[in-house]
């Protein structure tokens, strides 16, 4: 099997399996989770097939035409970066789905749960392997939608619904900004294919020199920040913790929230090495890292702590990907990529441990826990390994990437010089200190200290192996990558960094690398972290007080104001724009017609009325036209509905006579029939309403109405005069085409009908759809009115 097929299959397999999952559930019943696990395993195998070739520097690439007329094709591109993400997504996917077998109660809607998980996995794989940016966008939004459904999995819990809505609103609208950024990129480069841009140095130079450079960058970064919960967009992630814990572990720590980071890494070659890139990406990263790390203190929900820690860890990567200068683009790329992999392992593990704890204690409140090490020693060990890795303690993998973070911060500061030489490393250390403190909090609050049994169930025990093995596996990975980093670095990190930097990368990562400044910084981090931890509760209490005193000083407050205010605002808007009676709409429409139709027509026309008017009207037509005018006047003047309706239909019948004179039998016949039918419908309606108009118009309103209607009438007259006998048309009439071709091409002698059903058949199809919708609309309007009575 060639590798392009393998990648394509890896992406679509989860979708296909999700499609036939309900049928499989009938056979497998409660063991359906293993079916999903097997699917993830197959996807992992398919992705892994590409690893040897990518390690040798040969990327996988291929495409299938999809919307050729728009230049959009389905194309996949697998370089080191995509493969790394593909391995993380499918690998963590296996563990999550296996774990869910035990975590999700048998009474839950398992079919929906696994279907959505599989669809998410497919979308995520599709996103990271997409070469075409429109396709990337589609998969990107698919991950937002599946995430929405999974956060809102427990549909009857208000907080789940709130969290799901919030995440969808923020990530999906960020996606729209990103799409706009992609379109700007397309304007600059003329291609939708990201691999083409990456392989074309002159194209990258064009982008960097283009006036829209900053515009495209900001738009794309908004999308990335919204997805990865960076900057002000972080607010959705804490609320997303309402999802079932395996979902949080999968989507909201290991994979989906990294989509924004992936995007930043993906566009790194295009935008990096500029000041704007450093300021925007690193600035956003550093601010988020510090703010989220600090805000984590207040959290009492164990998943809440993990959510804030995820935000700050993602911000590390963001900051590192931003470390670039003109001479040295990509200072932090290898470090960020390594941290990305490490974070996926230890954070997913932490979430799974949190899931076990919440499962056994039936609470997620850390203030009610403590002393669980005696009841669950194995869980305690696994959780501690993962938390210490997050804190950056050797010999675990988090230590290595944290050191690299410090190193790259030092180097970046050194290159920039000035006060930044000290500020950037100092910010990095401060971020590390916060991380250390909340990591210790996780271990201490849950497992150490005294058991507060008044809140906890009497008998707590280790979970079954199904729930224990996945986090244990991750904990072993955490240790192995820490002790023997070279394997992961060679097969995963080097190709991924090569994919970002577009050149071969050789890294030397080892546990002991001498007594460096970075090691000094780590030691400072530990000491300061322990010192900070002694004040942990004081700081949390202070944060609570500030929050109570200044509730408006938060992004959530603004979000709630906007979202909760929306129904009221739109109702007010509708009350103004849609008052109910027909007249205001008609006035608006006619005024619009005057502004858009009359004024431009007058500007274009040299004279208002053509000089040589031909008013040679035969007498019978004159009489007919006079009658039409009379009937129309009657419509306007008559006071009773019945009379007015008859006058309207008189106008219609008289017009059909005009059609007969003009030798248009089709039109005449249609006009008569429609007129008849609508007169009957009108009569049916007016039988049930008051017989006279009860409209007392003031003189000014009457004058306004008269002015508008006569202005419209005169405009139409002038336009018609010009159209029929005035200005020579710049275009040839299209009717000649139909006259010539209706018999040879469509075998029909009735040109009107031939146009309707053949030449313009597509239009007619649209029209009959409208007719159906109009019928349904009228019917439902009538019915809903009688229902509400």
């Amino acid at each position, binding site marked *: 099997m060639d590798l392009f097929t393998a990648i394509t299959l890896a992406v679509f397999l989860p979708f296909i399996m999700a499609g036939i999952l309900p049928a499989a559930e009938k056979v497998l019943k409660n063991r359906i989770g293993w079916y999903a696990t097997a699917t993830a395993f197959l996807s992992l195998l398919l992705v892994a097939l590409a690893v040897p070739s990518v390690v040798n520097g040969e990327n996988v690439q291929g495409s299938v035409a999809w919307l050729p007329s728009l230049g959009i094709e389905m194309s996949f591109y697998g370089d080191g970066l995509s493969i790394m993400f593909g391995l993380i997504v499918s690998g963590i996917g296996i563990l999550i789905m296996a774990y869910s077998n035990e975590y999700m109660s048998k009474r839950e809607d398992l079919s929906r749960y696994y279907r959505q998980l599989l669809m998410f996995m497919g979308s995520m794989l599709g996103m990271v392997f997409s070469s075409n940016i429109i396709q990337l966008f589609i998969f990107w939004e698919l991950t937002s939608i599946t995430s929405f459904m999974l956060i809102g999995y427990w549909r009857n819990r208000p907080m789940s619904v709130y969290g799901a809505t919030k995440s969808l609103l923020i990530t999906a609208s960020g996606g729209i900004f990103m799409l706009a950024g992609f379109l700007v990129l397309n304007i600059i480069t003329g291609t939708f294919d990201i691999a083409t841009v990456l392989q074309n140095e002159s194209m990258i130079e064009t982008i960097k020199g283009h006036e829209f450079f900053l515009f495209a960058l900001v738009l794309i970064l908004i999308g990335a920040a919204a997805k990865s919960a960076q900057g002000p967009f972080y607010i959705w992630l804490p609320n997303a913790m309402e999802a079932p814990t395996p979902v949080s572990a999968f989507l909201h720590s290991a994979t989906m929230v990294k989509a924004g980071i992936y995007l930043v890494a993906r566009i790194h070659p295009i935008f990096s090495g500029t000041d704007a890139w450093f300021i925007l990406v690193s600035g956003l990263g550093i601010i988020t890292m510090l703010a989220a790390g600090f805000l984590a203190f207040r959290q009492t929900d164990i998943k809440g702590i993990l959510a804030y820690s995820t935000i700050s860890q993602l911000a590390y990567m963001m900051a590192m990907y931003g470390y670039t200068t003109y001479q040295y683009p990509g200072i932090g790329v290898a470090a960020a990529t390594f941290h990305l992999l490490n974070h996926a392992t230890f954070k997913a593990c932490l979430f799974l441990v949190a899931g076990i704890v919440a499962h056994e204690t039936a609470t997620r409140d850390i203030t009610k826990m403590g002393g669980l090490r005696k009841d669950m020693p194995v869980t305690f060990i696994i959780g501690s390994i993962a938390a210490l890795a997050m804190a950056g303690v050797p010999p675990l993998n988090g230590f290595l990437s944290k050191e690299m973070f410090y190193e790259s911060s030092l180097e970046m500061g050194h290159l920039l010089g000035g006060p930044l030489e000290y500020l950037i490393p100092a910010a990095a250390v401060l971020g590390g200190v916060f991380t250390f403190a909340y990591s210790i909090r996780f271990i201490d609050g849950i497992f150490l200290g005294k058991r507060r049994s008044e809140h906890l169930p009497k008998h707590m025990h280790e979970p079954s192996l199904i729930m224990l093995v996945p986090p244990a596996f991750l904990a072993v990975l955490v240790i192995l990558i820490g002790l023997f980093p070279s394997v992961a670095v060679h097969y995963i990190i080097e190709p991924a960094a090569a994919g970002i930097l577009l050149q071969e990368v050789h890294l030397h990562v080892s546990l002991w690398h001498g007594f460096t400044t970075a090691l000094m910084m780590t030691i400072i981090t530990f000491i300061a972290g322990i010192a900070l931890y002694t004040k942990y509760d004081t700081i949390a209490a202070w944060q609570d007080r500030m929050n109570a005193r200044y509730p408006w000083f938060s992004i959530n407050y603004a979000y709630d104001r906007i979202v909760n205010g929306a129904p009221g605002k739109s109702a007010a808007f509708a009350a103004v724009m849609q008052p109910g009676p027909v007249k205001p709409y008609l006035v608006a429409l006619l005024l619009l017609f005057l502004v858009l139709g009359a004024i431009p027509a007058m500007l274009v026309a040299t004279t208002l009325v053509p000089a040589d008017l031909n008013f040679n009207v035969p007498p019978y037509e004159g009489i007919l036209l006079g009658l039409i005018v009379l009937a129309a006047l009657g419509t306007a003047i008559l006071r009773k509905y019945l009379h007015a309706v008859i006058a309207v239909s008189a106008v219609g019948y008289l017009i059909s006579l005009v059609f007969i004179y003009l030798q248009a*039998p*089709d039109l005449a*016949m*249609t006009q008569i*029939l*429609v007129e*008849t*039918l609508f007169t*009957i*419908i009108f009569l*049916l*309606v007016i039988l*049930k309403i008051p017989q006279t108009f009860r409209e007392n118009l003031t003189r000014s309103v009457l004058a306004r109405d008269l002015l508008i209607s006569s202005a419209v009438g005169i405009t139409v007259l002038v336009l018609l005069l010009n159209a029929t006998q005035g200005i020579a048309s710049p275009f040839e009439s299209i009717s000649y085409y139909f006259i010539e071709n209706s018999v040879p091409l*469509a*075998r*029909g*002698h*009735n040109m*009107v*009908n*031939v146009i*309707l*059903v*053949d030449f313009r*058949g*597509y239009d*007619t*199809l649209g029209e*009959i*759809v409208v*007719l*159906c919708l*109009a*019928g*349904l609309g*009228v*019917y439902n309007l*009538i*019915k809903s*009115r*009688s229902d509400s009575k």
Partner: protein
Amino acid sequence: MTTLITKTVSKACVPIIILFSVSLLFAGHDLPGGGFIGGVMFASAISLLYVAFGLKYIDSIYSYQWDKWFGAGLLLASLTGFGAMLFGYNFLRSLYMLVSLPLLGDVKLLSTTLFDIGVYLVVIGSLLYVFKGTGEDE
């Protein structure tokens, strides 16, 4: 309105109008007519029945669900479009053949006729759907 004269006249007229509407539908390609006009004519014939005999009486004999008519029409018109795709042509491309039938002689068969029947059904269905909805309303 529902005098004996109206009832008798409509009984006599309605079948003729319906036949005429069908002939309009099929003649449409070469002579004045077509699905739209035919449909409106059919609808006015039925509405004559409704007015002459009353909705309830007609419903008691046979309750027409006009929404099904326009649903079917829309389906037929769209399927005609897809039919062309089965033969490898673009959506809605018209197809044509001449067939010799006993008694009728040479008859030209057009895919557009099927499309026009779809239009016919949609027009009948939606007009009478609205008509009946308005009439039933209290």
